């Protein structure tokens, strides 16, 4: 691909765009967001509702990272390099919320 011309590359042979999968991903993410919005008003606040929100958010994150950021097309090694540190953050979240509850119980 080392063309060094001032002429437009591949002039006249531009391929047709293949965007079906992009719009499909977009509608999935939009659908999940709409669902979250509906749940926010139909369900009273509870741990179950928060769990649903977090699971739906992780679904959305999966579609963005796998399709839009093309992580699913990368090598297994790169996928794990990104996913293992990220999964440790779940532990961080659980640990700090537990800590927050402990502080709460100590005060109130």
């Amino acid at each position, binding site marked *: *691909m*080392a*063309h*060094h011309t*001032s002429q*437009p*590359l*591949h002039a006249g042979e*531009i*391929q047709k*765009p*293949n*965007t079906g999968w*992009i*719009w499909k*991903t*977009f509608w999935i*993410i*939009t659908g999940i*967001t709409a669902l*979250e*919005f509906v749940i*926010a*008003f139909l369900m009273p*606040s509870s741990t179950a509702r*928060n769990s649903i*929100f*977090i699971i*739906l*958010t992780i679904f*959305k*994150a999966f579609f*963005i*990272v796998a*399709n*839009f*950021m093309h992580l699913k097309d*990368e*090598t297994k*090694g*790169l996928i794990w*390099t*990104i996913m293992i*540190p*990220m999964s440790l*953050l779940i532990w*961080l*979240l659980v640990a*700090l*919320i537990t*800590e*927050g*509850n402990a*502080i*709460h119980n100590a*005060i*109130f």
Partner: protein
Amino acid sequence: MSTISPTTQAVSDSALDKPRTGTWDGGNEPFNASYGKLMMWFFLLSDAFTFAAFLTTYGLIRHRYMAYSGSPEAFTFSTKYWPIPEKVFNAFPGLHGVDLPLAFVALMTMILIFSSVTMVLAVEAGHRFDKKDVQKWLLWTILFGTVFVSCQAWEWSHFIGGTDEGTLMNDGTRFYGANLAVNQYGPVLFADLFFFITGFHGTHVFSGICLLIYCFIATTNGTFEKRGHYEMVEKIGLYWHFVDLVWVFVFTFFYLV
């Protein structure tokens, strides 16, 4: 220098002519990803840690305070408990006094998700060397990104300005809006976390827009075309999707939960 024989000199000269390709010589591409893309992934990973630190801090501090236990209809602002987000974020530009819980933030979310779609369309056009399409989709992405930041500016100014009623504080005065030391919505840290989390995210969107403008200028000048690939659009696209991804989490943890 005199110790180098003419033969050795000749070999090293020709070695300089072409890139070195040995596995331990820089010729190996770990994970079959280019240097730039790999480093962008690692940068995004480190950035994800920063945002995760913000959001877990939010989780900790929120659980440290009392939760509001009454019915949503009877909710009033108080520093005694953490506010419920749909009562704080219920304003919409141009519709003063109308209670539209989370409507504006839902719109902002959709704008940012849509900008992610136009970004991925720009990357796809780059794969096809379709300069006109890359320009078109980059411009749409810049537009949606700018609209998002403008929406956030409105959200901030409304949050800082406060509601018409304000809140009667413990010392008997009425306080309107929010700053880093006092706010009408709830505990001090609620407003602090709002400013820090959405502010840090907004800064990311702003730098993303700057990068996209650079990308648009370089595309227009034909820089990427001459280079033979549109990888820069892909790398900046990765960053842009990441910013969208972070917002998805901010939306959940700050506005929904």
